[in-house]
Structures are given as C-alpha cells and as structure tokens.
C-alpha cells in the first residue's frame, strides 16, 4: 500500500535504461488528497491505453495491484487513456529518453 510521503507514480525504475527508453508510467488511484499527497487506494483493475499523436491506439496494459502501469514509447506526443469501472480519463503527455513521464491519475 502507498503511504503518505511515498513518491507517487509508476513502478520502480531500477533496471530500466532511461538513456535508451522513453518511459511513460504512473499510478491510478481512487480520488482523495490529504495534505497535497494523493493517498487514494490503488486501482488494480484499471486498463491504461496509449494513443499516438494522431489518436491511434498503440498499446494497452492493466494496472498492477498498486495501480501502476508502464509503457516503453518512442519520444513524442502521446495520449494516455485510463479506463476503469465507472471512470474514463485522458491525459496528454510528451515522452522523451532520459526523463520518464510519471503520472498520478485519480479517478
């Protein structure tokens, strides 16, 4: 479980070579903020879709038990779509090598 003060966002990047990978990742949490830190329960059965700059589907992953997801994209503009029971969120992101996009999506 995520605790107050933990770094929000996607899975641990240890072992991922960020110089060669354009990572887009994050965590899907139930809406709820305390002292500015997202502390909602992780949503472990959400589906996260990655659309390219033209809106074309590229990939989809289910979230893990911590609500986390990760894509290895190409540098450029992408849209992340989060689907869960009763919820749908779209977030536009810019992927690049060297610096991962790390999202906290509250639904």
């Amino acid at each position, binding site marked *: 479980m995520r605790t107050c003060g933990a770094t929000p966002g996607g899975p641990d990047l240890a072992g991922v070579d960020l110089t*060669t990978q354009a990572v887009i990742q994050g965590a899907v949490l139930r809406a709820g903020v305390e002292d500015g830190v997202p502390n909602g329960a992780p949503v472990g059965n959400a589906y996260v879709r990655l659309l390219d700059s033209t809106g074309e*589907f590229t990939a*989809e992953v289910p979230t893990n038990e911590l609500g986390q997801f990760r894509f*290895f994209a190409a540098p450029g503009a992408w849209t992340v779509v989060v689907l869960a029971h009763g919820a749908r969120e779209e977030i536009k992101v810019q992927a690049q090598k060297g610096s991962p996009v790390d999202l906290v999506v509250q639904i």
Partner: protein
Amino acid sequence: MSRATSLVSIDWVQENLNNPHVVFVEVDEDTTLYDKGHIQGAITFHWRDDLQDGLIRDLISKEKFEALLSKSGIANDSTVVLYGGNNNWFATYAFWYFKIYGHQDVRLIDGGRKLWELKGLPLVNEVPARAATRYVAKERDNSIRAFRDEVVAAIGAKNIVDVRSPQEFSGELAAPAHLPQESGQIKGHIPTAKNIPWSKAANEDGTFRSNEELSELYKSAGVDFAKETIAYCRIGERSAFSWFVLHELLDLQNVRNYDGSWTEYGSLVGVPVAIGA
C-alpha cells in the same frame, strides 16, 4: 463459422455460469491475472508453459494437447469458452489453437476480461476441481497456419496483413509499447503487407466492431477478399486476434495466422524487408 457460433456476450456467460457442458478458460498475456480473480468456474491455460513446446519453437504436440485438455476436464463435446486480458489477444491465440487441433465447439467472450471488469462483474478466487477426461484431438489443421516459406511466396501475390502498431510497422519500434524495445530482430515489415492494426477491429471496451465496420476496415485498406490472406504480428498472438476477425467473424476462407511472425521473419537471412508507413 460465424459471429453467432464463435462469439458469446457477457450476458450469455452470466446465463451459462453453471452450465455443466460449458468450460470457461482464461488465457492471459499477464499470467498473474487469473490468480487475482477470474470468472466463476473458469480454469486457466498458461500461454507459454501450457501452449508452447518449450524445447523447439512450435505448438505443443497432439499428445501433449490431449493430455492438457484431459487433465483440465475438457471433453471432446465440451463447449469451450475462452476469454482473457489484453483485449483477448492470447484468448484468440488459444481459440486458433483449439481449431488447429479440431475442437468442435469453441467460442470467445466478446470483450473478454476487460469488459467483464469494466462492467464491475464479480471475479472469484476458487479454482474449480474438474474431473479428468480422455480427450482425443484431431491431427493439426495447418490450413489456418502459415509458415515462413509460404509467407515469402505470398509477397505481392496474396494479402499480407501486418496487425502490429503503425510504429512497429514503420520500423520506429521493435515491439509493442508496453514491452522493452531491445530486440534481436531488424525492424520493419514484410513488403506489400497492409498495416491494419488489430486494435482497429476492437472497440475501446474490448468488444469487436460490427461485421459491416470490419469488412469496410479491411477492404478500404486494400485487402482483396477474393484472395488468400496471411496475418502476422510479432509473435502470433495479436495476429490470432485478426485471424479470428477474418476467419470467424467475417467467415472468410483461406485465412492463415503466421505464428512465426516478425520474431521469425525479422531474423531470416536475405528476405526482403520494407520500412516506413
């Protein structure tokens, strides 16, 4: 085959959860999903441990398939209903597999695990105990499977449908964007292939588009329904999804899944490769 005989709705599933003639089988890319909860009564097959030979790169033998189904409690006259995560990729692969070995009544849940979850329907943790059977498979039906020499010979002659993402087709990515991009293969696609990503056949909730939409999708991309068609992707699962659309939903004959796919083709010495959109 047709949509009516190959596809069932989640409403049908709910009405048949206790039908003793029906065996639900979950097949996932992420094989931990089943243990996190599954449809009541469902068993699971592991796409690699259960469905790959393990020594050579091939399907499991007829004898191993018979042993797998027998110990799983699937009889020759069972109605096997497949579903899975990731828009049924690996479930359609398993569907194709059941057809290879001649199972009479195999169906797929429209929308798969995703639609089930998005609808908030219940998942259970109990693993059912099924009495073993004595399953007898048929010899492999290779009329729905393409091999590398047939694929090379099909360049410019038959429909070749590359169902990967546009980025993999063009050579920008080596694998789907949810997988690391290291790869032993060169990048690109088979010359004369049409890029019709598998995802274009599916709605956002994982259900298939209508037959009218599907027919228009392939025709408008240049697929000639009068010719034979070979579908491929990276390892043959996404193309099993598109094979299912063409062979089962649109009821086209002479549609083959090239399960060697890009991981084989992209490693062959001397074959032609194209890049770009």
